């Protein structure tokens, strides 16, 4: 987006991409005490580029609190209190404020924040920009009045924010560009529009990953080449003692830094893989026993070390990890390999190791910032471990004659709970991020999930899965709507991490048996096709549901509970 001219952005915004017409409208509201029209145009452009059918709504100028009463029907809200706007109305220069006037200003804004937090509680994602004095007055040695006010307001925000509010450090965008490149006082004087296009572009890209995470559009894996990418030098030529990744040389230091970043990413739950043209035993030897390696087998969830072409290898990685190619980033030093992957699998984001090596770590970090999001949720943090356990399962698989025999050897246990409020964040996250095993792909916020709990016409079933290799946590969700004797399946989803183990049958059996014992008559269900949920297309017919004949393009199913008999899955234990 950095390179796209503003004129092209305005032009692009005037027409909606026909492919987006069918996707759900995402309403975005921007509330501020400065003019944000250019920001709105840039954000609209960014979201549409990511295939989100956004509709922008800019609040009235300097009406932040008032607008939060009206703008409740919105999916994303961005709140920007500009310090310039706050102090512009005063008759005294900010540094001339005495403690009493500062206190008055602080208290009135704190009161506004409290109202806002309450009013926006049902909006799935609220980005609230932290206050910054950088545009007003700051001093290297003396602490300024402006700074003190901002510090206090930010503390108030941190103390009082709700779970749906993401606090964004707006100041960092200004720091990255420098103040002179960030503000345009001409526009501020004429129209109260303070920031440059460049600044808003920087800001949009910085908050982008947080927004996309909530739509399940986020990269999940980074696959690295080895030679001159993970370490300096070529293993096949320089040998295990010749490759560099230690502190004792300039080049080595850079690769050491890269490896530190990779270990950090693995610890954050980003999936790390290798794809390299080398002898597999040579690479294993380096990973296992080279004293300078920081990246070890405990960080790497997948390897394709062979002489096949990299496009084929990356496709097989995507298949084995059960993630779409648009979730993958590939890093390699060879322009040939990068081009090959770009041309054969355009969904994969590629990064070529820069010729100016010193820029390699910062370039990798920028890519991470713009394309990955660290939720900090434990389900994300444990991902590397869970994928490694998955590999052990796969290894075990080869030892057994039949699939069922193998599955039985895993000692799978599921626990189904109804309306479990402690997991509400995880439930919402599952609806936002699950794309493959998801029959209706309906996305719900935490507030919406809580509303299901509160509403007697809805049941929320969740499933936790464990086996002899480890605990996968809450990985299945089913939301049902009850109307008289009829049950409707609103949502049924399962994380791709536990797919392929017939767990879905055990889960739905449990729920259907429950309703059958309660003498409900019918269960209705729907399959809404998306670009990614092909794997569940045949799920309902497999379970004995009958498709309603009169419809053409829709997949509406019905099950008669009076005659239904469960599909036997003996090897899965249903726990309490």
């Amino acid at each position, binding site marked *: 987006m950095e390179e796209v*001219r*503003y*004129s092209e952005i*305005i*032009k692009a915004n*005037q027409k909606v991409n026909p492919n987006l017409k069918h996707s759900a409208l995402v309403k975005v509201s921007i509330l501020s005490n400065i*003019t944000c*029209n*250019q920001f709105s*145009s840039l954000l609209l452009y960014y979201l549409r580029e990511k295939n989100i059918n956004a509709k922008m709504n800019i609040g009235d100028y300097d009406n932040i609190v008032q607008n939060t009463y009206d703008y409740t029907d919105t999916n994303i809200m961005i709140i920007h209190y500009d310090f310039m706007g706050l102090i512009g109305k005063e008759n005294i220069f900010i540094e001339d404020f005495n403690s009493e006037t500062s206190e008055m200003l602080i208290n009135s804004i704190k009161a506004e924040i409290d109202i806002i937090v309450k009013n926006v509680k049902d909006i799935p994602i609220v980005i609230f920009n932290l206050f910054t004095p950088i545009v007003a007055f700051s001093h290297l040695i003396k602490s300024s009045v402006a700074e003190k006010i901002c510090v206090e307001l930010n503390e108030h925000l941190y103390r009082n924010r709700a779970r749906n509010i993401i606090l964004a450090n707006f100041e960092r965008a200004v720091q990255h560009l420098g103040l002179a490149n960030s503000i345009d*006082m*001409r*526009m501020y*004087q*004429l*129209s109260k*529009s303070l920031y440059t*296009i460049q600044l808003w572009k920087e800001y949009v890209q910085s908050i982008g990953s947080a927004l996309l995470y909530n739509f399940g559009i986020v990269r999940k894996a980074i696959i690295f080449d080895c030679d001159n990418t993970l370490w300096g030098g070529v293993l096949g030529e320089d040998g295990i003692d010749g490759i560099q990744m230690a502190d004792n040389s300039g080049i080595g230091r850079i690769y050491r830094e890269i490896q530190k970043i990779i270990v950090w990413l693995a610890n954050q739950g980003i999936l790390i893989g290798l794809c390299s043209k080398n002898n597999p035993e040579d690479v294993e030897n380096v990973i296992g026993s080279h004293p300078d390696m920081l990246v070890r087998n405990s960080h790497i969830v997948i390897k394709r070390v062979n002489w096949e072409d990299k496009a084929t290898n990356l496709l097989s990685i995507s298949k084995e990890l059960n993630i779409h190619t648009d979730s993958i980033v590939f890093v390699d030093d060879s322009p040939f390999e990068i081009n090959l992957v770009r041309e054969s699998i355009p969904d994969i984001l590629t990064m070529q190791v820069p010729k100016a090596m010193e820029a390699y770590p910062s370039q990798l970090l920028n890519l991470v910032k713009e394309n990955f999001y660290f939720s900090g949720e434990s389900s994300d943090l444990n991902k590397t471990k869970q994928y490694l356990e998955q590999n052990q399962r796969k290894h075990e698989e080869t030892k057994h004659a039949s699939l069922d025999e193998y599955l039985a050897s895993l000692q799978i246990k599921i626990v189904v709970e109804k309306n479990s409020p402690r997991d509400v964040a995880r439930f919402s996250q599952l609806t936002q991020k699950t794309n493959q095993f998801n029959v209706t792909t309906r996305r719900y916020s935490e507030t919406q999930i809580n509303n299901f709990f509160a509403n007697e016409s809805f049941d929320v079933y969740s499933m936790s899965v464990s086996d002899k290799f480890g605990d996968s946590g809450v990985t299945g969700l089913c939301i049902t709507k009850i109307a008289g004797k009829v049950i409707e399946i609103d949502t049924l989803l399962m994380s791709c991490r536990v797919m392929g183990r017939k767990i879905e049958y055990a889960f739905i059996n449990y729920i259907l048996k429950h309703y059958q014992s309660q003498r409900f008559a019918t269960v209705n269900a729907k399959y809404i096709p998306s670009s990614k949920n092909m794997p569940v297309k045949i799920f309902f017919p497999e379970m004995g549901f009958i498709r309603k004949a009169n419809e053409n393009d829709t997949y509406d199913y019905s099950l008669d509970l009076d005659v239904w008999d469960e599909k036997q899955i003996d090897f899965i234990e249903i726990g309490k």
Partner: protein
Amino acid sequence: MDHIEKRLSEIMSEVFQVPIEKIDSESSQDNISNWDSLSHFDLIITIEEAWGITIPVEEIGSMTSMKIISLILKELTAS
């Protein structure tokens, strides 16, 4: 129309969403309905981007018609 005005017509047509044939030397804030105070700044940013210039603040407010804008642009690009 000279070269500058032709380029300006293209820009105005895009920013204000008006067919290019409807824009001529007489176009101004008075006869282009989408030309309001907010789209005015999109126009200014786009012009600055196209010519690689920075327009002084005192000129921005007065750039309300094709004639005036092209005059100011000629002055700014002459030096």
